[in-house]
Structure formats: C-alpha cells, structure tokens
C-alpha cells in the first residue's frame, strides 16, 4: 500500500506541475473541425508569439447553444452566414475594424455582391464556401446521375446517409422539386417533407459528421454531404466521386466573426487578416477542398482544384443554388415541424 501511495503522489505532482507553465497569450477559436491547414495555424502561432486553442462544434445550433449557456471566452467564432445574422441580432458580435484587416481587399467582389448576406463585411468576413453535394462510391452505383434522385437508390438500402440538418435535407428535397430552399410556402414544404420521408426508407441514418469516415471505409455508399468533407473522404478512398446535383443545391459559407466579449480582439483581427492573405487562403483551400472566396488566391490554386467542378461550380448550377437563410421564428418553426414529422416517420 505504501508503495502505491508514494507512486501515486509522485504521479499526481508530476501531472500538476506539467500543466502549469505556458504563459503565452491564447487565441480561443470556436469553429468547425478540420477547418484549417494545421501548418498555417502553427505559422500564425509562431509569427504572433501566441497559442491557439481550438474548440469544436458540429452545428451552428450547437455553437449558439453553448454561447447562450454562458461560454464567453472566445475570440473568434466561425458561424455560417445565416447564423451571423442571428448573432448580430442578439448583440453577440462586434463590428470589425477594417483598419486592422488590410487584406480584406482580396475578398472576391463577385461573391460579395451575388451571394453574401453581409455585403460590406461589417461584422463578418467570409472564410470558406462550399456547396452541399452527394458522394458515392464508384462501381457500386449503376447509372449515377448528378441529381438528387441518387438519394433514392433502393438497391443500396441501408448504405445511404442524409445530413442530420433540417434545412439542408429539406432544402435538398425542395431543390429536387424545383422550389426555393428558403420558401415559406406550406404546400411546398409539405411535398419536400414527403420526399424526404421517401428518401428515409433507404438510409442507414441521418449523419452530419461521420459520413466521410463512413464513405471512405465503405460503410456507406452514397452520402449527402458537404463537398469539403467528401473531398477529404476522396483523399482516403479514391473511388469516391462527388457530384453537385444539377437541380441546384445549397451553398454554405462560413464566416469569421469576433464576439463582443472577446478577450483578445487585436489578436483576433490579426488572425482574420492572416487568413485573408492570398497565400494562406490558397493553402487552406488546397487542404480543406472548400473554396475561400479570395480572388487573389484563385491564381495561386493548383489546376486540379481549378478544374474541379465541385469546387468551382458550373455557372448554370450555381445560378440555381442558394444560401440557406434564417427565416425568423415562425419560418423556422415550419421547418422544425416538418423535420419532426420526418424523424417520426416509420421506415418500412
């Protein structure tokens, strides 16, 4: 017993001592997982003599829930564009000091005028955009069409996944039926809901996180997912093919914002400036397979990326695609009700 006590005391003191020590300033980021090229983060840490602490959320709602529950120590948040509006309305983010972010000139003006919600980058700077698409394993799907109908392949029942996100999945159905994915029309939402329930008959599960590991390992053969994630799966399994449905899809853009209560706002501005450097944006795009809407970076990209239709989307398809917008409490409620019914629907 004595030996054990002594040993455990030594162990305990070693642990306590090892966790004290680092006094560098810390930049606290709350963002999506696998969303930065880690070498670039290290470079920022070295250039600015700080440490980056990255916390991960897996959905905008989860991020908001955490913030509302009192998590206040973050310097940088990475919400999707629609969530930026909500955060602003709740007074949780601050106006950006453009003087501290000279690299803003690199941001693609076409993106800002056509797609962005915050066109003057008053409170947010776009970071990465990606379309939602469908990934499938080559050879397992007979006659694959770049269309939402792929999700209804009964031969592959149990090997298909849909995103566990009400707006994305109902949105996909709306697009497949030719409607806007921000519609408030009850009839349109109802038919989209019924379509999703039809899709549901063939899926393994609703999955927003593990589908890329799943499709790479062959657990799933068709996945409704974010193109960036699907590209990462493609890196691991070259049989994965990614298509953007021709009926149009949702384009998600994640932005960088600084909370009002940020502990290190100057460091946060410096970080945003860093990410807007042409070189850094290009490196991130190459790593994540999402597109940084940074025109100075476009020239620096490799041909492989420039020719990839799931990154630089065909303009016709792009014209049919939209960004998911916040619809206010009543609008959101309609989708929530439809989603609840989808989740409750039986699988035959």
């Amino acid at each position, binding site marked *: 017993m004595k030996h054990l006590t002594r040993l455990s005391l030594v162990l305990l003191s070693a642990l306590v001592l090892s966790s004290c020590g680092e006094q560098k300033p810390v930049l606290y980021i709350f963002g999506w997982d696998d969303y930065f090229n880690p070498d670039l983060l290290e470079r920022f840490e070295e250039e600015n003599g700080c440490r980056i602490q990255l916390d991960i959320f897996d959905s905008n*709602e989860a991020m908001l*829930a955490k913030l509302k529950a009192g998590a206040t120590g973050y310097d940088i948040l990475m919400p999707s564009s629609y969530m930026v509006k*909500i955060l602003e309305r709740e007074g949780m983010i601050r106006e950006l000091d453009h003087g501290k972010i000279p690299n803003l000139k690199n941001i693609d003006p076409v993106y800002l005028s056509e797609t962005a919600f915050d066109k003057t980058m008053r409170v947010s700077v776009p970071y990465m955009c990606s379309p939602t698409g469908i990934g499938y394993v080559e050879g397992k799907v007979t006659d694959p069409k770049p269309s939402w109908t792929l999700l209804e392949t009964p031969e592959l029942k149990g090997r298909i996944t849909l995103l566990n996100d009400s707006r994305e999945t109902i949105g996909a159905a709306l697009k497949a039926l030719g409607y806007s994915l921000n519609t408030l029309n009850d009839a349109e939402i109802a038919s989209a809901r019924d379509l999703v329930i039809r899709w549901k008959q063939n899926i393994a599960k609703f999955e927003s996180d593990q589908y890329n590991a799943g499709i790479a390992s062959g*657990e799933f053969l068709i996945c409704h997912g974010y193109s960036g994630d699907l590209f990462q799966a493609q890196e691991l399994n070259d049989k994965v093919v990614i298509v953007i449905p021709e009926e149009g899809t949702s384009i998600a853009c994640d932005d960088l914002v600084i909370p009002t209560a940020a502990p290190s706002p100057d460091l946060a501005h410096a970080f945003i400036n860093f990410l807007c450097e042409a070189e850094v944006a290009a490196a991130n795009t190459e790593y994540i397979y999402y597109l940084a809407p940074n025109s100075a970076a476009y020239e620096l990209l490799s041909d492989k990326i420039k020719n990839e239709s799931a990154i630089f989307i065909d303009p016709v398809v792009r014209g049919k695609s939209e960004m998911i917008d916040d619809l206010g409490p009543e609008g959101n409620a309609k989708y929530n009700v439809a989603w609840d019914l989808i989740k409750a629907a039986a699988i035959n």
Partner: protein
Amino acid sequence: MSNPSPKYSPHRFNRSEWIRTIPSFGWLAFFFAIPTLLILVMSFKSANPYGGFGEGWSLQAWRDMGNPSYPAVTWRTVWLSVVATVICVAMALPVGFLLGKSLPKTRATLLLLIIVPFWTNFLIRVYAWKVLLHPEGYLRQALLSLHLIDERTLLLNHEWAVLLVMVYSYLPFAILPIYAAAEKFDFALLDAARDLGASAIRSFWQIFVPGVQRGLFAALVMVLIPALGSYIIPDLVGGAASEMLGNKIAARLFVDRNWPHAAAVSVLLMAVTLFPVLFAFAQQKKESRPESPRPESAKKGAAPA
C-alpha cells in the same frame, strides 16, 4: 460516544449526528436533488427561439410532447432495455454460479478477467463494435460466405446492433451483484437437492436462483435503469429508426437548443425509470433491515450494493 453500535433513537435530535450527516447530505441535496427537481420546474419555462431558456413561463414544451414520435421512441426505449436486461441476467446467472463455485484463486482470476475490459474507455469499446459489425468487415463477409445472411442484411445501424452493444456494456453490472450473492450462497443445498433426486437444471432454478435473489434483483436494477437512459450506444451504432429517449433529450438540447423541451423529455425519462427505481428502493429497504448475525463467511473488500 466511541462505541459504534447502532443507536436506535428515531426521534431524538442528536447534534453530532446532524453535523456528521450535513457534509454528504448537503452536497447531494444541493448538487443532485435540487437539480433534478429543477428539470421539472424548467420544463415549464418558455424557450428562447435562438436557444436556451427564454423569459417567462409557458406550457409549450409540454404541448410539444404531443409529437407523434414520442410514444414510439418511449416504447422502443422500454422494450430494448427490458430485453437487454433479460439477456444480461440470463448470461450472468450461470457465470455468477461458476464464480461462486470456483476455488478462490480461479475466482480472483476470472473476476479480474471480467472487469479488465471495462478499464478501457467506453466510447472506444462501442467504436470497436462498429468495426466488428462493419458492412465490409470480416464478420459480415464470413456470415455472407456461410450463407447465414443475405446481401441486404446489415449488422450495423440497426436496432439489433443497439441491443448487442447494450448487452455488452451492461453485462458486468449484472455479473457482479449475482456473483456477490453467489459468494454467500450455500452450495451444499444444491448437493442436497441432487441427492434427493432433482436434476441439475431443476436444482439450479429452484434452489440457486431463489438463493441469490437479492443479487438477481440488484442485477435487474443495475442494468435496466442505465439501459433506459442509453444515449451513446443508439447514437453510434443505431440507425434512423433506433432512436431512444436519451437521443431525443440530447437532440433537443444540443441540436434544437430547445432547453425547456429537453427538460420535458427528461421528465418523461424520469417517469419511465420511476418504477424500477422504486422497486430498487423497496429491495434496499428489505436488505438493510437489521438482521440476526450471519454465519461467518470470508468477506472480501467491498462490492457496492
């Protein structure tokens, strides 16, 4: 004051007793009892449309309980948990029997062997099952080539996978209480029964099982109640149609960020677990009643409950 024999004085206010009770009682009252009651209270708050609790009170969370999925999910939670419990206990009885009959050295080794897997992280073990049950994995390929299943059958993302992993996770909770009771069981009774002509099976069911009934009830409780609250297992290995109440609570809290509604669903779960909990309490009361001195038996360190 130094004689530690129990004091049977139900009505006298004893200051030193109160002082010694306050630390643990106070802690649990503050961090366990009050929060639990708080769930019920907060389920009557209105929800902030952008997450968390809103201002004021409302019955909306309870009206939302009319959602058609809840009866199905509740029923699934109950039957999956009950079946898992039955299987666990059915496996634990012969195992506990064997442990009771083993010689001390074997018994210690076997116990260690049973406990050791549970020193690996729970998530890792569930994830290992995902690997085992993978559609492209060796197990399924083997079953396919033996023609035991057809091409369309999948081992994962299904209710059966949830059941399997539940049994796996809760098995030791069934084995330990039954073993604890088996250790005190007088196996000579079984020999006597055999001498009187009873078959092995009969003596097992009619002598051994009633003889360890305290352990049996403890096992039932220790498996059923956590099983009802399962969340990780259906989340990782279950499919779209295998949601349990735990998933619903987590989804309401983290995805929908509707805290009052999550609280309401939690109250539903509390109601579902109420019966086994009350049963457990009744059993505990029976057990802790002061009894006549037991025959000397080699008591090891401590096994909880």
